[in-house]
């Protein structure tokens, strides 16, 4: 009995000792799956950490969820892509000044067989109308993310209520971009995605880009510090350092230098 207890105690001790981590200053950034899964953070963060010694811990969620997490005070900085929702977040007093960082674009992907006959089109709204008219399968995020919000705005412009196709051709996966693309690939459905996630996505199956290059597919990213007067524990100094670095010439150049193969994924466009 005693020996058993001793073994148990020493195990607990070992585990608790290894559990103690080096005390390093860190900030928590609520960001989106598109920036994480495209590999951008893996490219950016080491440069910033080396320069400042501040560790950046990224929690990747949909934009809606990321903003909610920051509203609860669980993040120091928000780095997302839904300008309307970001403005609201700042107007409510949860965030300090929002700054634009970079953009990439959305693309519509779909099966090579192209049941809605839209391959090669540059008109996303027309493509949406044709998908709805053809009743071709369409996989939507359905998760209140920035991408989902952009997708819904386009349906509205097209004058189509996708909810009428629910249970039929319009399929909400209620999950992140990657899982939604996995679903689309398995069902040979159309899907609306940011280019970064698409470029780094490997399980494409028969999917190809069918519509790109429309002005309305522009996808702007913004960054802001969570308001320390709402949440006093927010690491104001370190968080602001990260925001400032992202919009600095060095940060912007680092963003521009991230490529997958020959493709640049994000285009810095801060206004200073």
């Amino acid at each position, binding site marked *: 009995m005693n020996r058993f207890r001793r073994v148990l105690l020493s*195990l607990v001790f070992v585990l608790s000792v290894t*559990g103690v981590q080096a005390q390093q200053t860190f900030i928590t950034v609520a960001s989106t*799956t598109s920036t994480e899964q495209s590999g951008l953070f893996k490219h950016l963060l080491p440069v910033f950490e080396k320069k400042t010694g501040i560790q950046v811990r*990224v929690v*990747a969620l949909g934009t809606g969820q990321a903003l909610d997490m920051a509203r*609860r*005070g669980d993040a120091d900085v928000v780095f997302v892509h839904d300008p309307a929702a970001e403005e609201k977040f700042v107007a409510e007093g949860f965030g300090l000044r929002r700054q634009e960082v970079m953009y990439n674009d959305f693309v519509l992907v779909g099966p090579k067989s192209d049941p809605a006959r839209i391959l090669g089109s540059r008109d996303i709204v027309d493509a949406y109308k044709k998908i709805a008219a053809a009743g071709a399968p369409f996989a939507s995020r359905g998760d209140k993310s920035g991408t989902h919000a952009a997708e819904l705005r386009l349906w509205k412009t097209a004058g189509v209520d996708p909810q009428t196709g629910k249970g039929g051709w319009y399929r909400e996966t209620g999950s992140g971009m*990657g*899982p939604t693309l996995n679903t689309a690939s398995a069902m040979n459905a159309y899907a609306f995605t940011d280019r970064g996630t698409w470029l780094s996505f490997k*399980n494409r199956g028969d999917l190809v880009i069918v519509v790109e290059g429309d002005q309305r597919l522009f996808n702007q990213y913004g960054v802001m510090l969570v308001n320390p007067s709402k949440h006093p524990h927010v690491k104001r100094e370190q968080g602001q350092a990260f925001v400032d670095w992202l919009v600095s010439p060095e940060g912007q150049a680092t963003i521009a230098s991230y490529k997958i193969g020959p493709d640049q994924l994000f285009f810095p466009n801060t206004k200073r």
Partner: protein
Amino acid sequence: MSELGEAFAAAWALIAGVEPGLTGIVLLSLQVSLSAVLIASAIALPLGAAIAVGRFPGRQALIVLLNALMGLPPVVVGLLVYLLLSRAGPMGSLGILFTPTAMVVAQTVLVIPIIAALSRQVIEDAWREYDEQLRSLGASRPSAALTLIWDTRFSLVTIVLAGFGRAAAEVGAVMIVGGNIDGVTRVMTTAIALETSKGDLPLALGLGIVLLTLVLLLNALAALIRELATRRYG
């Protein structure tokens, strides 16, 4: 089938150390799940024993509740712990959300019902068998409970391993309270979920094979210890 082949190749590459960062993920997985199981055992084994030998009003209802809680969905536990530890929540000032500690808390909550409910059953069965014997020796209920824990220790090890299996395999709770932060709270299961969403199915499955191998080794180790102990103590 080619994807399965790729998965095994990926698993082999991972084990052979081609992929950096994996060691940290594996160690964190073990650290979090083992800590959770140890803490849960320290609470749940005495609890199970107490319910097994105790006689009190509402006992039957408590047993039903414990048995039902074995089916607690990890996501729900994750969400509850998240709301508890969030800055806006009652324990927010601790600031342990998105740390391994939060993950240990969530998995502990998840594992306690499993160990408590199963050990209650095992110890109660033993209690029925030795009831008279223990009483004739003049053992009080608490000391009878301790004796029974010791007597059924080999069965209890299996139960603790079941708890470990649950902790090491779940993804819903650690994803929410840990946040899957690279290098800080990324464990095997959340890494598998991430690679799946990146569409890198072979790598995801490869990680799954590594996790399975690890659990297998741990179980083999437990079996070995049990074998040695049985030989030594009969």
